[in-house]
């Protein structure tokens, strides 16, 4: 409001000022005709302070000016009622007679104060607005028309001018930077008259240094100044800045200009606030300890300067410092709040299980710094960063490895998470340096980590296909059209998602033997009966023996595009089944596909011919064995009798013979 009020006032005054102009237009006598009798002469001059000054007044311009209706004496008040030609010199014109607000603002402004100090470089009304040819500011001919303002100001505030050389102005190349900024480009190159010029931010008359709390460009007021045009900017900044704090607690947030440099607004970072050197005055000391608990308060300059935040000043994170104190940090009442800048991520974290635990002051809950570090923080693209893809599993392992604090309190079914992941295909690829493979955060997200029971969790059963589909998009598309997708089957019971078949952490390549041999048990968890009968037929039997080439469930039914066999698109539909068999059995025809891959001989109603064949064969076996067995058993007593007789005869014979061994050998044979 501080800025808007004078503007409204100015506009109002301009409106009033027009009235006498119109009245004058109605009068026949051209304004100031008497004065122009002399001042209409272009050669009329006078000498002031040794300089020749023209006293010519362009009557045409004056009659076209906004002040024409007032005549000469309207401004040159000391001529009122004087005889002409008048005595020279006249008093300086006081615009404030009519423009009292502007006069008052100008007097308070940097420019006004400089005049009061007698600064010869300080601008007065006439330096910006001109004199006899003043037209409304909206008129393109005006000296202070929007498009001309940068040059009016730039007349002094550009490189090489006495002002820029002799006065302490913290910004350099102001006009040049402005003309290349997005604002300058819009105004000067594209003619967008509403684009901000100097006066838009600095105000036309109440120009104050940024250190002045009343200044439109003071840190506290910057947001209000910018939001005059960029209203609702907080809504587009919410990923980076907690926008609403601009109004509530502007001091904890970076001001617009912290990120968007004044005069060269191009998303360029710009460090401001308290100088880091002031902090390092104490914190560079390696022995610096906190009085409260003896914690080291040493900050390594090298660490900070290599970090991602090396352009951010200490005081931007450690807000609440007060530069006017001897120890500026003594006003700090709380730790660093990363969410001041990383607002969206902060919200995600707060909702996550880590954030929830932190909210309950759980000592095990990780905060930002547990994962990201502090002064040495690096971006996730930096291979040295703890959040670089290759380092993520190790980072999470600090708590989630078996025996560590997170693993200890975990009650779910996933164990040896880190070990299993490392052995998995994702872990193997990561070990080989493929940074785009899935790490912990790829599935669990970095900041929105939630237990899988939470419907909002990225690993909740309903969201798993989407999560995996981020990388395995083609697979997800197939899956979403398969019978396993709720949308397709309309089945109310829980349906399998990626991890039900592939597991969560120990995911292996599907062409590995272990996967191929275990998949029947996997499918069999739900498809119990059909899996049992699969093992009654050839494919199942040889699979049981560890033969990986024999057809497994998905070789026939499809893996992700599995559909009911009654669906014409199914691999096993009438039209497709022969081709499916043909993948292994070259030349397979429709009749070949009539082989019953899930048949059992125990079901007389479904497979009568198998049932009766089996029992026919069983009967044959039983009869044969019973007859053969009985014959043998009946024989045994006689056979033993024969053996005894034989041995007796042998013994008798041996007694008669000198060399019984020879004989015995033969009879045994």
């Amino acid at each position: 409001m501080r800025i808007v009020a004078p503007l409204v006032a100015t506009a109002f005054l301009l409106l009033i000022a027009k009235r006498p102009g119109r009245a004058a237009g109605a009068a026949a006598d051209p304004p100031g005709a008497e004065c122009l009798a002399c001042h209409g002469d272009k050669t009329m001059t006078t000498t002031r302070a040794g300089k020749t000054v023209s006293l010519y007044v362009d009557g045409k311009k004056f009659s076209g000016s906004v002040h024409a209706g007032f005549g000469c004496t309207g401004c040159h008040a000391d001529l009122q009622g004087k005889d002409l030609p008048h005595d020279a010199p006249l008093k300086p014109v006081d615009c404030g007679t009519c423009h009292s607000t502007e006069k008052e603002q100008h007097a308070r402004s940097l420019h006004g104060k400089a005049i009061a100090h007698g600064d010869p470089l300080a601008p007065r009304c006439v330096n910006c607005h001109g004199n006899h040819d003043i037209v409304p500011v909206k008129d393109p001919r005006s000296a202070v028309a929007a498009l001309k303002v940068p040059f009016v100001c730039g007349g002094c505030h550009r490189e090489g001018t006495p002002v820029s050389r002799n006065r302490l102005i913290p910004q350099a190349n102001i006009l040049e930077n402005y003309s290349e900024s997005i604002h300058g480009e819009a105004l000067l190159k594209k003619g967008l008259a509403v684009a901000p010029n100097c006066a838009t931010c600095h105000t036309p008359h109440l120009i104050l240094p940024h250190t002045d709390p009343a200044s439109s460009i003071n840190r506290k007021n910057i947001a209000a100044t910018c939001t005059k045009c960029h209203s609702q900017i907080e809504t587009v900044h919410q990923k980076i800045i907690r926008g609403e704090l601009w109004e509530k607690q502007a001091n904890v947030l970076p001001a617009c200009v912290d990120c968007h440099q004044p005069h060269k607004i191009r998303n360029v970072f710009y460090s401001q606030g308290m100088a880091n050197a002031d902090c390092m005055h104490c914190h560079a000391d390696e022995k610096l300890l906190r009085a409260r608990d003896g914690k080291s308060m040493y900050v390594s300059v090298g660490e900070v300067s290599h970090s991602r935040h090396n352009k951010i000043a200490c005081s931007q994170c450690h807000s609440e410092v007060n530069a006017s104190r001897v120890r500026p940090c003594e006003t700090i009442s709380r730790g660093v709040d990363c969410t001041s800048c990383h607002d969206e991520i902060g919200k995600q974290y707060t909702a996550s299980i880590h954030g929830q635990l932190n909210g309950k002051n759980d000592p095990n809950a990780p905060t930002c710094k547990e994962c990201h570090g502090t002064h040495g923080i690096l971006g996730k693209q930096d291979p040295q960063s703890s959040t670089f893809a290759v380092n993520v599993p190790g980072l999470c392992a600090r708590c989630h490895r078996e025996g560590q604090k997170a693993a200890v309190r975990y009650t779910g079914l996933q164990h040896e998470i880190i070990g299993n992941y490392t052995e998995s295909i994702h872990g193997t690829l990561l070990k080989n340096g493929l940074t785009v493979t899935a790490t912990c955060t790829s599935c669990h997200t970095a900041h929105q980590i939630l237990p899988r029971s939470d419907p909002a969790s990225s690993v909740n059963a309903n969201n798993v296909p989407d999560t995996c589909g981020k990388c395995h998009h083609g697979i997800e598309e197939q899956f979403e059209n398969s019978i396993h997708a709720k949308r397709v089957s309309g089945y109310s019971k829980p349906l399998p998602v990626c991890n039900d078949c592939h597991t969560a952490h120990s995911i292996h390549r599907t062409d590995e033997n272990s996967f191929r041999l275990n998949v029947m048990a996997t499918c069999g968890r739900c498809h119990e009966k059909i899996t049992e009968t699969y093992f009654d037929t050839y494919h199942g039997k040889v699979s049981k023996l560890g033969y990986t080439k024999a057809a497994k469930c998905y070789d026939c039914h499809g893996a992700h595009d599995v559909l009911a066999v009654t669906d014409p698109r199914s691999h096993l539909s009438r039209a497709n089944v022969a081709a499916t068999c043909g993948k292994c059995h070259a030349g397979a025809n429709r009749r070949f596909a009539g082989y019953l891959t899930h048949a059992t001989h125990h079901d007389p109603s479904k497979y009568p011919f198998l049932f009766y064949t089996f029992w026919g064969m069983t009967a044959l076996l039983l009869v044969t064995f019973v007859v053969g067995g009985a014959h043998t058993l009946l024989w045994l007593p006689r056979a033993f009798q024969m053996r005894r007789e034989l041995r007796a005869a042998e013994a008798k014979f041996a007694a008669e013979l000198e060399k019984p061994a020879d004989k015995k050998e033969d009879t045994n044979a």
Partner: protein
Amino acid sequence: MANSAVAKRQFVRFSRLQRILHICMIVSFMSLALTGLTLKFSYTKWAAVLSHLLGGFENAGYIHRTAAVVMFGVFVTHLVDLYKLKKREHGTWRALLLGPGSMTMNRRDLTEFVGTLKWFVGRGPRPAYGRWTYWEKFDYFAVFWGIAVIGSTGLTLWFPVFFTRFLPGWLLNVTTIIHSDEALLATGFIFTVHFFNTHLRPEKFPMDITVFTGRMPLEELERDKPREYEELVASGKLEEKMEEAYQPIVTQTIRAFAWAALAVGFSIVLWIIYAMLFAYR
């Protein structure tokens, strides 16, 4: 008999070719049984271990099919041998099939069977068996039956694409059952009844190696096959069927092989019994 020179000469019961065929059949049959049963009882731990020992299922499959080819070879060679025998000794198929010494069942076999049962129960003497007893003939034709049934069904499983050009696919499920159960019958019968009948009878225990050496002591022939012995003595052809016995090293080698075959056979029987009783599904 007391003469040691005579004692070393033995009666020749099997020709060299017959003995070779029997050994080939043992090797191929054991191979078929081992590899086939791993598949039949794939759900037992036994099968998985055995399959692994055989070099994995795929290898087991190659062994099975190679052994099947050997078995077919044995079968065909025997038929050719029969044809030559017919030309050499009988002249006509009729003479071969119905003449003395034929393998075909005849009325005397029925009589001997009844006589045997009577002998078993102590109601008569041991029949005077001839060259082939009825149980030997049964074993012989069981092989014919087995090769026909197991062999033909095996071929449909070996070449399913070819057979389903003119047979329905579900018939493969039927032939699987027949192949598998008939093989179970064959292994079960061979490794129990056949082993007992011809090798393990107490009076011949631990084994009768006649089928490997082709020779048997004359007194054994006299005791075991009295009618054949008498016929040979009567016709005076006995002497031309006598040959020198093998050296002990040969018989020892044969015994080692036979022991191995017995061990495999009995292990298979035990495994089958275990699988049928405790793991059947």
